């Protein structure tokens, strides 16, 4: 019981207790003194720990209600995806489908280019994040640990670029890619990402500030080249930070929508997010909601699984850096 140090064990109201902060036995006089110290407690029949525990119960109830609100739409989606066409219009609504129709999850693969959508999304997100992470980390190494004139000016310029919203640059970008015949291919989604990601560079640079310069100097004296230093010393050191940034970036590219919708027209060339959006447009008129929900749920699943597996790293990284990817 690790909590026993911060929380005293079960306390009956009125019984002497140990103040969790001060550790003083609660004689009546002591309790009166404490009551004077915290005016809102005066005249309250319950001790402070009991009130804290009651507070916990109350907070748990509120958070549980909130959790139902957070999960409700997702569970409703899953429930809808397992219903027959008639069951979705049943009144009162069925929370648990009757009968449960798993066929929707078979039907969905032939109802639209879902498989090619997954493949395309994997190609885009995979290539961008693998290559982009390498270019970003090499650049972060140079920004953090190497000498170069105007280094900080270049870094600030790249950072300032973050303020430029994608809609402001998407039209000329589209025209350039149209000129070289890349529209309706995955290349406009992949190529810009290969050049790295300033958010990742920023966080890796921060992370590298903690790596002592002396080990790099020592390696230099031993005659190691900069690439050797990067792969032997720097890369292993920044791997944890990179992993978290990599996952966040992968999820961001996987979930991207505006750039794909501009560039991709042919259904078989679209990424998963576009495929489910066209499922939505196509099958809503036939009110085939079970099919739409099955496709949407399949689109959610990979990221959901990655999140559940790496949730500790993801949450820590986000809390630490604020980076969403």
């Amino acid at each position, binding site marked *: 019981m690790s909590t026993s140090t911060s929380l005293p064990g079960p306390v009956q109201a009125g019984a002497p207790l140990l103040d969790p902060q001060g550790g003083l036995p609660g004689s009546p006089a002591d309790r009166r003194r404490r009551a004077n110290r915290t005016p809102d407690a005066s005249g309250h029949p319950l001790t402070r720990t009991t009130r804290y525990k009651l507070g916990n119960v109350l907070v748990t109830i509120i958070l549980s209600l*909130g959790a139902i609100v957070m999960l409700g739409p997702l569970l409703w989606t899953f429930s809808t995806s397992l219903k027959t066409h008639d069951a979705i219009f049943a009144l009162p609504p069925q929370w648990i489908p009757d009968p449960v129709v798993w066929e929707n999850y078979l039907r969905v693969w032939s109802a639209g280019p879902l498989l090619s959508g997954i493949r395309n999304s994997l190609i885009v997100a995979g290539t961008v994040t693998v290559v982009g992470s390498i270019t970003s980390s090499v*650049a972060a190494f140079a920004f953090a640990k190497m000498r170069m004139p105007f280094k900080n000016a270049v870094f600030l310029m*790249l950072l300032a670029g973050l303020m430029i*919203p994608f*809609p402001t640059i998407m039209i000329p970008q589209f025209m350039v890619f149209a000129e070289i015949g890349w529209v309706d291919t995955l290349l406009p989604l992949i190529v810009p990402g290969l050049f790295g990601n300033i958010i990742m560079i920023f966080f890796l640079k921060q992370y590298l500030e903690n790596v002592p310069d002396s080990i790099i100097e020592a390696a230099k004296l031993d005659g190691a080249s900069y690439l050797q230093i990067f792969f032997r010393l720097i890369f292993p050191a920044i791997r944890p930070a990179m992993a978290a940034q990599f996952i966040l970036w992968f999820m961001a590219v996987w979930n991207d*929508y505006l750039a794909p919708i501009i560039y991709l027209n042919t259904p078989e060339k679209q990424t998963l997010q*576009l495929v489910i959006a066209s499922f939505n447009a196509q099958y809503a008129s036939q009110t085939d909601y079970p099919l739409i929900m099955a496709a949407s749920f399949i689109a959610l699943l990979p990221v959901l699984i990655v999140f559940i597996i790496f949730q500790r790293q993801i949450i820590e990284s986000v809390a630490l850096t604020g980076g969403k990817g």
Partner: protein
Amino acid sequence: MSTEVLRTKPRRSRLHRREHQVALAFIAIPLIGFLLFTLYPLLYSVYASFTSWNGLAAPKFNGFDNYIKMWNDPYFLKSMWNTLFLMIGIPIGLVLSMALALGLNRRMRGITFFRTVYYIPVISSIAAIAIMWQWAYNGDFGLINQVLDLVGIQGPNWLADKDTVKPALIIMATWKGLGYSMLLYLAALQSVPRYLYEAAALDGAGTWQQFRNITLPMVRPVTFFLVVTSIIGGSQIFIEINIMTPLGGPEFSSASIVWYIWRQAFNNLHMGYASAMSIVLGLIIFIVTVIQFRLNRRNQFSID
């Protein structure tokens, strides 16, 4: 002695030059990416905003025509207003996420579970979320109205009514973003030193006073970060609109500015006009960010 100095000096500068070259090579890739895919398109956007351009023929210079046209375009003004209106969700989300973070900052069981649950909408694809919520907002058979029906309220057809489509989008966006702000607030709360509260309690400060005078100022950097990023993100709202109300909603009441730019550029091929609007959007984001940074600097706060 002097020869020694003469010998090492050129050697060191040669080493430095070598280091500069390698560093430049390492930095070159993101730098080239920035110049090609951000700076060049930005400058071209500025240029295109002063032209009449359909994307097929070469752009024709037409001065400030696009910018003048904007002020008389009711759709532009409406979509700007809609985008601004949708940002009502930002303060609501901040207050709710702060309350959640305070709840999760207690010593109790189930914290990790709740943290994970509240974070799931954040990582979920916005396209899938928008599709789900579109179904949930269905007037007759959607989840929202079914739940409202349980308490005897006849819900509206949310996305088809010009008065409810914006609240519907705000509720959804708040639901999706809550976990993110909550997580950042929670991390900030956990780094507030305990002795501040203990000292305040000794001085007789109540819970509300402690919250007002210690907690809020200590998490101000996070609030600042969230406000800035939420405004930047909120001004670019597009995916939800595109999926849930493909035609801009009843009476154009859910069309956002990015949605309108996208439609003008890629459906109507008014590339010059769309570029001008995108420049206005970029400028607004820039100005709002600069103002935020100014305000933040003036309100610098520290507890000694």
